[in-house]
């Protein structure tokens, strides 16, 4: 119990650090945005100076730790579901916070000579990334807006297995980095959809032990195709 509490406390400190770093990154993006690059589309007349929007997103992820995920889940892809909020400035700058969740149950494994042997012991992994992104948006047509950005986040990772004592299960958090680019299509005044490509890097959780160490895979992130449903202007 004491150990768990200590781990949780450390994790909280890391989380706060992640938040601070994310906020700093977003602030940098905002400052840089003040330069208004020449290629940015001019602010559209009638658009508010600042708009706040909410979104739900569905994220199909190709994990970078391909062999590790395949060994445990039989596949190296997964779906994140989440949501968040965006603040969009008339200058084209936007900042975003998003939270999503992935959970999958597979089996523990043993790796020898590059081959994984499934052990039929249930293992459930859960990933909860909280991401802060800043970037630019510019309109190609009145309804079509393209955007790109990057930022920091924090990813909570938990791993529980049957027969494994709670102290041997994993509950940890690490700073993540992501870049993304996509296009938003305005369906109506208050509703839009967006598709984006995202790359997330999450070092510090994988590669130290377990199957991920056996395969030499240290990035818990991956490449994702993200679909957002946006409510707001």
């Amino acid at each position: 119990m004491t150990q768990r509490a200590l781990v949780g406390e450390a994790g909280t400190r890391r989380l706060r650090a992640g938040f601070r770093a994310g906020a700093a990154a977003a602030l940098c993006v905002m400052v840089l945005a003040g330069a208004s690059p020449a290629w940015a589309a001019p602010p559209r007349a009638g658009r508010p100076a600042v708009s706040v929007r909410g979104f739900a997103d569905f994220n199909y992820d190709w994990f970078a730790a391909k062999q590790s995920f395949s060994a445990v889940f039989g596949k190296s892809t997964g779906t994140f579901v989440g949501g968040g909020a965006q603040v969009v400035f008339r200058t084209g700058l936007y900042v975003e916070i998003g939270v999503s969740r992935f959970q999958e149950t597979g089996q523990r494994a043993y790796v020898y000579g590059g081959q994984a042997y499934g052990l039929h012991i249930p293992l459930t992994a859960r990933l909860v990334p909280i991401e802060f992104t800043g970037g630019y948006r510019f309109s190609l047509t009145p309804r079509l807006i393209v955007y790109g950005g990057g930022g920091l986040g924090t990813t909570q990772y938990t791993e529980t297995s049957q027969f494994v004592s709670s102290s041997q299960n994993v509950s940890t958090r690490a700073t993540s980095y992501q870049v993304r680019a996509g296009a938003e299509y305005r369906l109506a005044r208050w509703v839009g959809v967006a598709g984006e490509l995202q790359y997330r890097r999450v070092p510090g959780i994988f590669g130290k032990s377990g199957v991920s160490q056996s395969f030499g895979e240290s990035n818990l992130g991956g490449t994702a195709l993200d679909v957002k449903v946006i409510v707001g202007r």
Partner: protein
Amino acid sequence: MGERLSEGIRERRSWRAPRPGVWKGVLALVAAGLVVQGAARRMVAGPLLTGLQRVEALTGLGAVAHRLVLQRVTLPGIDTGLRPYTITKRPGVPERALEIANRPPSTTSYVPGRLIVKFTSQVSAAAGAAILAAHGARLAIRPPNADFDLATIPTSTDPEALAATLNQRPDVAYAQADYREHATMVPNDPLYSYQWNFKKIGMESAWDINPGASPSIVVAVLDTGMAFENVRIQFQGASFQSGSDTYPALGTVDEDFAPAPDLASAGRFVDPYDFIWDDADPVDTDGHGTHVAGTIGQLTNNNVGTAGIAYNVKFMPVKVLDSQWDDIFGSPNQGTDDVVAEGIRYAADHGAQVINMSLGRTGPPAPAIQDAMQYAVSKGAFIAVAGGNDYENGNPPEVLPEIAAQIQGVVSVGAVDPNLNRAPYSSTGSYIELAAPGGSFDNGFGADGGILQQTLDLSQVDTYDLPPAQYGPPRFDAFAYYFFTGTSMATAHVSGLAALLMQQGITSPAAVEAAMEQFATHEGAAGRNDEYGFGLINPTATLLGLGLAR
């Protein structure tokens, strides 16, 4: 004819009929109606190994075999008196669906949607409810006989994270997820309390993960045979000389063999073969092979005798070692390199996934056995080899373990005593790869410092150790529980674990060895060492394998 193999059965051959006073070490186990004989079986080398010499003096080894199978008896069925368990099915609902509907399969170590909370004594029920409500939880019930509350939380909420948050509050004594407990399997076999060896390597939690493997796994026991069948066999007993004593010829004797009651069940034995007598009746005329098989897979949770590690596997009895009775009866073959090599290839060709070799020798290399081992591994068989019992005899290099160290998928095994220190007899060398309980009667451990299993009632087998006037035909259909010591016993632990791992999903012999070595509990000097190899086997950790991040 190659070198003679006998190392693994030295502890057996060192036994003599107990003298008056030695019986102090005999434990009468009234409940089982059996005798556990401990202190009488000592690890003494050299002078006591006289049986073979006696036989060789007066019998023409290699002469025509005097053995005739007279009668086969079908293993009788056992009426357990149990009634079948019936499941009440809902109309139209398949059995499996009902099971899932009643209780979802567990994917977490805790129950989702539930939290255990205890507030400090200053917190009223209303205040506690308010604290929980602030975190999206609500007070559910206070269970009877409890001084804590159960809270209901949304199933999407991580109870471990919420517990960590609540534990930071000064008004919360503790909060925790409601972790699932599971039964730790403790066999109900009445002599299990004597099996310190299983407790020391954590078999009870290992059995929770894998309860005894399954009949899909076949373990070949290359040894002195196995008490596995009801059969009557006719032998010709020759006379022999022992020191100044002449033992008379027994002439024609009809010997009844029976399966060891705590080992045999219907369909348990497959493809038996006897390379000492060249037939399909590898009956045990010594007791060593039956004892070794018991540690690998004695019937367990049957309210009888002792437990075994992989108690659901099938056995392939392969006799490659001759006993003193085989020699007295004039067996055509002895336990030599060629016989052992044949036995290994036979086991591999007949589908054994694990081969136990509680045997060995010192001396020149054994390329025939090395080739056979490589062949068996290439066919998917893992092999466990005894590390040798000769530390106190000058610790000469052991030939088979040296081979084992060169082949990934073949493991040489040293022995530890009840304190998990290297057993005094256990050979050391660069070839020792793993350690397992082999027991010891020395250093104050006494009678029950050995490894207990059922085998032949040796008081009725080893009549050649009695004075000539009391010498008579042996009985091979009576059984008792004995403490044995030796790397033979340690090897059987590794074979049992290998069977569990094979059934669990590690199907490559090389991977089985790697897993055992990776998860072994380190003993002795840092790194791999010559006493314990990579360490003491750790069945639980090995069966659990690896998670993604840990």
